[in-house]
């Protein structure tokens, strides 16, 4: 059952009605049952894996919290986390390994590949379980006695397809709200779902066609067309993933659970480290707490080399979290390298601009512009099917540096697969949506919106709904659901 299907909309509506009609004490159990039903609609064997993993982590967390000696506590936490990481690696990279074996002509590789079909949302739910166990070990969170609470945290259906990765303490702290969810939060949730659907179906999926065309054969396109394709992919990725996050947060609100935000106007970031504090925040903050800080603490005696190593390993982890592809590893490594340079020059840059107040004003404009272009560059590698294809794309981006002899500047809309009018309309809508994202955190703008006549507000909701219905026929799977 896809997140963007009519069946899923019906499933959410039905779950919502039954949830609110049920006695308060039953609601956590009901939500757990519906979460497992949703997951089982994808794969029954993978549902059993989800259940077994949850049971293992539940027992481990309780045992860790009751351990009397630090040594046993550490041993049990380490062993369980090693098992969870091995599970993640087996499913994420086992299929890739089987593919390599198949290419080498090994017998049985097909069976291995079939067994290691990547379970839906495994990267998200295993990160939740690892974080929960570490929080129990670090005594930040109490181990849950109720298996229903642990299982609901791990399998909560709005978050299992593409996150966000909610922290255990944050989720458990909200469980009491299941008994009395706020109506205002639920209606805000519905608006958030609509916003997410517009982002995903109307904006991201319109850009997807153009992006797919230029990436299929970069050599056939002019540098300007490739540049446009690169910009469009950055926007597609953002509107696709942030749209899915909006839908997840919106559905969670219908049941009284507020999920963590994943994006905070990432393309306004002043530098690379600022970008990674604004992009896929639930993953990057998870990696900061459970990977970067322990690494940085372990390497702190090595001075700048230790800091560089911690940053590079962390960013490499961001890259390969997406899957077993060299393009993802290079994407992570490039971002790591940019971040190392940015971190080590930041103080000097600040001092330079402090003495030149006039230039500082330009920095506000040029900082985000340069950061955006660095990200667009690395996202070309992220999107490419292979490193060879990424190299082909990048080399053809340089006017006259390509191999095809296509002139530098034509924009052939028929080849790109979208008309200039469609693209202009989509980009205008994208700007409006980004303004909504920004203004929704500004109290005075929120007040302005809600003081609009009811007919105007409902007109906007209907307009958004009609756009979603009109374009839902050719919607695509979310990019981030595959991770």
């Amino acid at each position, binding site marked *: 059952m896809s997140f963007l299907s009519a069946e899923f909309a019906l499933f959410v509506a039905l779950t919502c009605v039954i949830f609110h009609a049920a006695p308060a004490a039953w609601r956590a159990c009901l939500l757990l049952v519906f979460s497992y039903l949703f997951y089982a609609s994808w794969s029954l064997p993978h549902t059993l894996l989800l259940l077994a993993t949850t049971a293992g982590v539940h027992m481990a967390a309780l045992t860790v919290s009751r351990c009397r000696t630090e040594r046993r506590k550490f041993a049990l936490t380490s062993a369980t986390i090693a098992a969870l990481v091995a599970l993640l690696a087996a499913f994420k990279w086992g299929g890739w390994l089987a593919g390599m074996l198949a290419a080498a002509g090994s017998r049985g590789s097909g069976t291995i590949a079939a067994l290691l079909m990547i379970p839906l949302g495994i990267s998200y739910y295993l990160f939740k379980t690892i974080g929960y166990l570490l929080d129990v070990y*670090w*005594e*930040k969170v109490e181990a849950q006695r109720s298996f229903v609470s642990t299982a609901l945290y791990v399998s909560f259906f709005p978050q299992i397809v593409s996150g966000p990765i909610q922290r255990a303490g944050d989720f458990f702290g909200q469980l009491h709200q299941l008994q009395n969810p706020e109506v205002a939060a639920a209606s805000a949730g519905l608006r958030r779902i609509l916003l997410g659907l517009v982002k995903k179906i109307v904006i991201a999926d319109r850009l997807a066609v153009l992006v797919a065309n230029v990436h299929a054969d970069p050599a056939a396109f002019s540098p300007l067309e490739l540049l446009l394709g690169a910009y469009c992919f950055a926007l597609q990725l953002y509107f696709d993933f942030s749209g899915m996050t909006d839908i997840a947060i919106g559905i969670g609100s219908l049941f009284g659970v507020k999920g963590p935000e994943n994006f905070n106007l990432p393309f306004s970031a002043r530098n690379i*480290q600022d970008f990674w*504090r604004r992009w896929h925040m639930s993953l990057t903050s998870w990696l*900061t*707490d459970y990977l*970067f*800080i*322990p690494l*940085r*603490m*372990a390497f*702190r005696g090595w001075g700048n080399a230790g*800091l560089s190593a911690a*940053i590079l390993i962390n960013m490499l982890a961001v890259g390969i979290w997406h899957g077993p592809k060299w393009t993802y590893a290079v994407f992570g490594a490039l971002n790591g390298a940019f971040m190392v340079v940015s*971190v080590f020059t930041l*103080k000097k840059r*600040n001092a330079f601009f402090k003495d030149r107040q006039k230039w500082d004003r330009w920095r506000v404009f040029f900082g985000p512009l340069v950061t955006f272009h660095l990200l667009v560059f690395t996202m070309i590698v992220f999107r490419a099917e292979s490193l060879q294809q990424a190299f082909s794309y990048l080399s053809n981006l340089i006017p006259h540096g390509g191999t095809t002899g296509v002139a530098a500047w034509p924009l052939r809309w028929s080849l790109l697969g979208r008309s200039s009018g469609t693209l202009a309309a989509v980009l205008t809508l994208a700007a409006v949506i980004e303004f909504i994202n920004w203004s929704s955190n500004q109290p005075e703008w929120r007040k302005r919106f809600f003081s609009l006549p009811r007919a105007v507000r409902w007109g906007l909701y209907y307009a958004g709904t009609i756009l979603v219905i009109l374009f839902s026929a050719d919607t695509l799977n979310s990019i981030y659901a595959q991770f």
Partner: protein
Amino acid sequence: MTNDEIRQKLTPIFRDVFDDDSLEISEATTAGSVPTWDSLTHIDMIVAVEKAFGVSFTTKEVGSLGNVGDLIRLIANRAK
């Protein structure tokens, strides 16, 4: 060392690490109230504090700090 003496000794460290010559800290100061205090500069600050006070912290202790007051109490306990 009293908590206030520790706070006074921390002030120049914070000003240097967080690149703000006018930064004033109190026990209630948190990462949220200092714009340049992020996960990168957080450990830089911890390393500088360890050096200045001749102490060593664990990852668990560093992860449990909620504000400057927690850091002051941690240093005071360690220095006992």
